[in-house]
């Protein structure tokens, strides 16, 4: 059902952005049926003679699942690959932290799964804000991913017959999730990492560890290299190639507290954005309802607890605010508010992620949150297993959730067997990213984006166990096939080391570092980052309003202004300097944050992870406006010097659904 609302006023840009020409993907062969498109595209993509591949060079930034898989595959094919990452080893990229599993349309259980069903579930789960051609291809390559990983030695869970085990995940009706205990991401990444190291040994791939990309080099309209800082020595280096792939992950750390790793950042993609790559749907953020709450001002990150806990735990807060600091076990049943069971009697504690998250925020805003006070509020709700333990016995609960309970106890010092767990939502994935076409090429020729770094196949909301699938699909199967179509036109004219585009990019990176080092202000980098996170979480988090977003934009602008005047970075730029690394990342987050707010402000509808309070049904459910917003928002940068963000230009890519019927998402 497409919702129309004739009384809505015409879109107001608030002077925050302008609307540019629409864009469209031109690479998907839309003349053939959707299930033939990928085969057709692979056939149409030009080939590169094996003897010529060594002469063609590829730069890849990031060694998570997408980057490592692409680097290994392109190296195997014989291209000359250089790979950059900020960690000390390619094996540490944050893909490693994914717990649940990886989806694939294998239908090993004969329960009716198929490529089409996985495609259908993904588009629907993304609230009809993803490009259907890309999603279909993702579902199509998903089965190959499992084959590849098994051949690499990824130790997936198996049944006694020796075959692979599957589980159903995230409320899907088929069991299509492959897993390795609670460490699927780790095992997949080690598989990709080993394939990558094999190529390093063969000499097809060169690794640059502890290197951070600071600038993109664009020559004659083509991405031709990067400026990277060797974080161990502080040296700025330029690296040139025929094409550049960004697989640098998501930007959840704009919220300061998230389930991302400490080093996750937007710098690589933001620098590309500044050079002309469009940023797609930056406001689409996924907030996970079951994380361990913030314990104090010193908190550096948040830890996710598997969503499966909601199957047996009951969520509640005290009815009265004055009970909030009491021992929960002393609060009688009548004084507890099992608010999800009360508001959603049909779904109870199993309502979708976004609803569970938003309601937790609401009860805490009312002053009924539990746990330690952080700022003016207690940010936590109880997830209580007392009843389950009584009903099923402690042993049964221990078998199901033992390792999660141990992890919780390790972090909080409280045993969930004795005291109700405390949980609170946290940012853990960003659906937005660099806009790409069917070939994963950005709006800059020769610049590709893969994995969480692109605006991706997940639309406005990602389903569980789908991020690993997308990253590996992009890295192993999509990029190696599409990038050859581009490389077949190469090698491109050699770029001189002293070309103005190269020296200009290097000088820009150097100037930025020099400026950061020279400010010598009063405040630490982390204090700015923390403040930005508060703003984003408050106004661009689980629930967004026009008023709040306008306020946030103002706050971010003044914070950014203060940052460039008052940040304190000690030490020197020519050695390992972690404050400097963070300062550069926070500077970019301060620019991205504004764009996220503008995107959220312009999208006056609720869809997936983006909830606009002004656009909800009577039951408080997300309400889409397909008549107005059935498009990808691709933002063009229109700013200037560091810290200066001009008025961005909105390019709309209309979403066309030919193979799937557009419906309003409903949980009834």
């Amino acid at each position: 059902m497409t919702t129309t609302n004739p009384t809505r006023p015409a879109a107001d840009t608030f002077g925050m952005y302008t609307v540019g020409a629409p864009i469209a993907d031109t690479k998907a062969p839309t003349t053939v049926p959707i299930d033939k498109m990928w085969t057709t595209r692979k056939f149409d993509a030009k080939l590169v003679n094996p003897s010529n591949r060594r002469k063609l060079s590829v730069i890849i930034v990031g060694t998570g699942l997408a980057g490592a898989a692409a680097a290994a595959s392109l190296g195997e094919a014989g291209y000359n690959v250089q790979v950059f990452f900020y960690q000390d080893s390619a094996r540490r990229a944050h893909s490693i932290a994914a717990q649940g599993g990886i989806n694939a349309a294998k239908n090993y259980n004969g329960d009716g799964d198929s490529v089409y069903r996985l495609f259908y579930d993904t588009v629907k789960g993304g609230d009809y804000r993803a490009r259907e051609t890309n999603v279909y291809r993702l579902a199509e390559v998903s089965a190959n991913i499992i084959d590849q990983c098994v051949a690499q030695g990824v130790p997936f869970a198996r049944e006694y017959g020796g075959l692979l085990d599957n589980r159903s995940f995230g409320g899907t009706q088929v069991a299509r999730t492959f897993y390795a205990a609670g460490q699927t991401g780790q095992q997949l990444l080690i598989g990709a990492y080993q394939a990558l190291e094999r190529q390093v040994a063969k000499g097809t791939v060169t690794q640059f560890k502890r290197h951070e990309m600071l600038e993109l080099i664009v020559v004659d309209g083509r991405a031709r290299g990067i400026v990277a800082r060797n974080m161990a020595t502080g040296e700025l280096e330029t690296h040139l190639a025929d094409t550049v792939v960004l697989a640098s992950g998501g930007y959840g750390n704009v919220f300061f507290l998230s389930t991302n790793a400490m080093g996750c950042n937007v710098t690589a993609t933001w620098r590309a954005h500044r050079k002309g790559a469009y940023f797609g749907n930056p406001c689409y953020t996924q907030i996970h309802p079951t994380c361990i709450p913030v314990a104090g001002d010193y908190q550096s990150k948040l830890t996710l607890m598997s969503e499966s806990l909601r199957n047996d735990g009951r969520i509640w807060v005290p009815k009265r605010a004055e009970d909030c600091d009491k021992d929960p076990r002393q609060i009688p049943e009548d004084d507890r508010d099992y608010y999800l069971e009360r508001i959603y009697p049909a779904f109870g504690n199993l309502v979708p992620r976004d609803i569970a998250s938003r309601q937790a925020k609401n009860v805490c805003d009312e002053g009924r949150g539990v746990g330690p006070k952080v700022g003016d509020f207690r940010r936590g709700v109880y997830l209580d297993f007392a009843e389950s333990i009584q009903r099923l016995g402690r042993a049964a609960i221990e078998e199901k959730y033992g390792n999660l309970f141990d992890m919780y106890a390790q972090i909080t010092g409280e045993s969930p067997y004795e005291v109700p767990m405390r949980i609170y939502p946290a940012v853990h994935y960003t659906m937005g990213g660099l806009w790409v076409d069917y070939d994963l090429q950005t709006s800059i020729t020769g610049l590709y984006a893969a994995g969480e770094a692109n605006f991706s196949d997940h639309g406005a909301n990602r389903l569980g166990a789908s991020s690993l699938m997308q990253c590996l699909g992009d890295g192993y199967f999509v990029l190696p096939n599409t990038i050859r179509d581009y490389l077949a036109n190469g090698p491109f004219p050699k770029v001189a080391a002293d070309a103005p585009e190269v020296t200009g990019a290097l000088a820009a990176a150097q100037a930025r570092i020099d400026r950061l080092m020279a400010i010598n202000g009063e405040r630490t980098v982390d204090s700015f980052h923390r403040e930005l996170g508060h703003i984003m979480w408050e106004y661009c988090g689980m629930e967004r309003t026009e008023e709040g977003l306008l306020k946030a934009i103002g706050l971010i602008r003044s914070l950014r202004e203060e940052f460039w005047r008052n940040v304190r970075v000690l030490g020197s730029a020519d050695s390992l300097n972690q404050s400097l690394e963070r300062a550069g990342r926070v500077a970019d987050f301060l620019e991205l944050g504004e764009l996220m707010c503008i995107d959220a402000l312009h999208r006056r509808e609720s869809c997936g992870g983006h909830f606009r309070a002004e656009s909800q049904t009577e039951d408080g459910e997300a309400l889409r406006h397909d008549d107005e917003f059935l498009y990808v928002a691709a933002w063009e940068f229109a700013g200037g010097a560091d810290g200066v963000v001009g008025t961005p230009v909105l390019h709309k890519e209309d979403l066309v659904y030919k193979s799937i019927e557009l419906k309003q998402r409903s949980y009834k």
Partner: protein
Amino acid sequence: MNLTLNIWRQDGPNAQGRMVTYQLADVSEHMSFLEMLDVLNEQLVEKGEEPIAFDSDCREGICGMCGLMINGKAHGPEVTTTCQLHMRSFHDGDTITVEPWRATAFPVLRDLVVDRSAFDRIIQSGGFISVNTGAAPEAHSVPVPKPKADRAFESAKCIGCGACVAACPNASAMLFMGAKVTHLGELPQGQPERWARVVKMVSQHDHEGFGGCTNTGACADVCPKEIPLDVINQLNKDLRGSMSKRA
């Protein structure tokens, strides 16, 4: 709680290092050990002193980036990663000595940050199964007996943090290597390269300057992923096997 911290400071790879003592007040027992260092660093920056460099990334015990020698124990008093160690494991008035991993193969870059590239090179030397993308057979074509699959998984849990090397009296990386040899060697997919793999990996290990194993078990005692000592036995067995089966 109030703490006295003795922390190794070293300005660069070739600089002379020294222990520096810091006092830190009002530490919450709910902080993680690294958050405690974050707080110390914020205070140092405010005072105009350079913060202490230390590695960490995921801070949920899985990436293997963090790793500190705390009071002579790799990752501190609990069997976990440094990032998952919490201050409730310490007491008011404690003196805590923090040092980097010490091994020739893990040179110090700055303060508490070391270079663990040697581990990558050990993997490069043979810690993989050679299969090109797209060359894989259907996943169900080779069943794997569950006990073997389970042992492979248990060994594959290694996060490459280097605590085994740090704790070993010989600075040996046998537990790290044994875990990889066992992971790949238990699986049918890993058989074709099994004998060559172990020889190449151990040769690279020795070349890196790690010490030999003396079967003390100090490594397994501190391993945050509780990799058992018997993976070293497996490595030894495979190396012995390689002498008759390689050719």
